[in-house]
């Protein structure tokens, strides 16, 4: 819009003598400077709002790799109860078919209690030997496999916390603070 105005209506500060001189070059200069101006505006404010978008998007801070145990010290089939600083309890189990002396992260299982359906917390029902989600009656077996309810219909098992073994030590990635 400004481009058109620049080229069609010389500002009234320009004297008449000026207007007779090389109108083509004047037009090109006006168009070029308008284009530069537009590019500056779009680039400048575009960058500003792009940064603003990054600022508003959660930075992902608040998760950390937390120390669990000496990996080799956990016997096959054994479970350890882990409580994060935020108070979240996780049962970390070493798979019974893992027998190596120095197990890797794949030999362990740490089930999240967040239901894969819509994010409610499941709880362990000892008498039924199952995990149960009270929101929409989701049921999971002790390995976290969906048995019935909406999660089973969609084939969504309980998610697992990321684990890693570094130099024989087992770590779990969890949020370290809570609301």
């Amino acid at each position: 819009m400004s481009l058109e105005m620049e080229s069609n209506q010389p500002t009234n500060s320009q004297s008449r003598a000026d207007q007779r001189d090389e109108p083509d070059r004047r037009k090109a200069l006006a168009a070029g400077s308008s284009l530069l101006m537009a590019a500056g505006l779009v680039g400048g404010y575009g960058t500003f709002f792009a940064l603003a978008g990054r600022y508003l998007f959660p930075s992902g801070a608040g998760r950390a790799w937390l120390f669990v145990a000496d990996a080799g010290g956990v016997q096959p089939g054994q479970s350890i109860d882990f409580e994060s600083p935020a108070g979240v309890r996780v049962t970390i189990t070493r798979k019974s078919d893992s027998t190596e002396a120095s197990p890797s992260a794949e030999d362990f299982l740490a089930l999240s209690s967040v239901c894969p359906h819509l994010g409610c917390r499941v709880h362990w029902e000892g008498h039924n030997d199952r995990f149960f989600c009270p929101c929409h009656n989701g049921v999971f077996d002790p390995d976290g496999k969906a048995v019935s309810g909406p999660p089973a219909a969609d084939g969504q098992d309980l998610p697992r916390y990321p684990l890693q073994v570094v130099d024989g030590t087992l770590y779990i990635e969890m949020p370290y603070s809570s609301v």
Partner: protein
Amino acid sequence: MHGAYSRGIAESQVLSGIWRNNKYLLWDVLEHREIQGTQRVSRLVAWWNERVPISGDQLRELTNEPVPNHMKKWWFALGGTPAYLFVVQILTGIMLAIYYQPASTTAYESVRYITEDVTYGWYFRSVHKWAATLMIAAVVLHQMRVYFTGAYRCPRELNWVIGMSLLMVTLGLGFTGYSLVFEQLSYWGATVGGNIMDAVPVVGGPLKQMLLAGDQYNEQTLPRFYILHAAILPVTLILLIGVHIAFIRLHGVTELEGEVEPEDKTKHFNFFPDHILTELALGLTLMILLSALATIFPAMLGPRADPLTTPEEIKPEWFFYATFRWLKLFGPTFAVLSMGFIVFLMFVWPWVDQLLVRITRNKETSTYIGIVAVFLIIGLTVWEAAVAH
């Protein structure tokens, strides 16, 4: 462009005419006719014009305020500068408010989180801080320009009063702003501010109680500063800016006396688009300046507020240096009352000026007083900046 526009209006009048006479006929027009691309566009234009009945001429009259030629000088775009910076403050302020937690237990940690953890948090916090500094500087420069060109004189006295109110609200925003960080300066600045109020006879005590939510800084204090900073003062500023600009439109921009212009030149140019382009370029320049300042001198975080220890060296932000030095020179009650009197004189200066002109028979008396006042304020500021105590 104008041709297409008036065609659109004509089309709209035709269509709305049809609509009024017989609505089924309009449906006929829209549905059963083969509508070509251009007609589709004019249908859109017609739709718009019927719902927003503003003609191009009305719009042009609204935006094409003719402004005197002296406005082409950058010095005279200083009024738009604080307004632009205020928009920057609103944007960055809303962004900071998204992470900031106004409670004495969480405020400092949330500012640390913004500064260190949030992506580009340091940038937006620094831009907010530097834009505040530049905004106060621009307001003061704008005020000096208005003062020394005598633009506050009849009939624009009331707009000077509005302008003074804008200065006060801006300073209030600055003060409440650095109180929110909850570093040592925030706490002790608020404490000292409350006690300065206390020094005002009669109303001072209750005012201090209202500001601090008690006799001294407590856990109810910070929310008050927050609401002042993020709601009450900005809304006041927006309303005052509205009145300020309305007055400018009603009176027109002051003609500058003593401008030598060639006879054949027009004395005015159009606000839109000519002056808007100046403001756009100014806005981009300010954006570059702010980003550079924010990157080279980012906003730091001092030690957390400690009610038990006043730091050995404590100073307000630079824009309060002069008043701070004034407070040290005189006892609190005299300093507060004299400062109050000076601010009152500044508010009513257009009438003081009339009085001075009548007494001294010299139109420049105010200019001389202004020069002395500016050097006094600069002197006090530099003095405060140069010494530790």
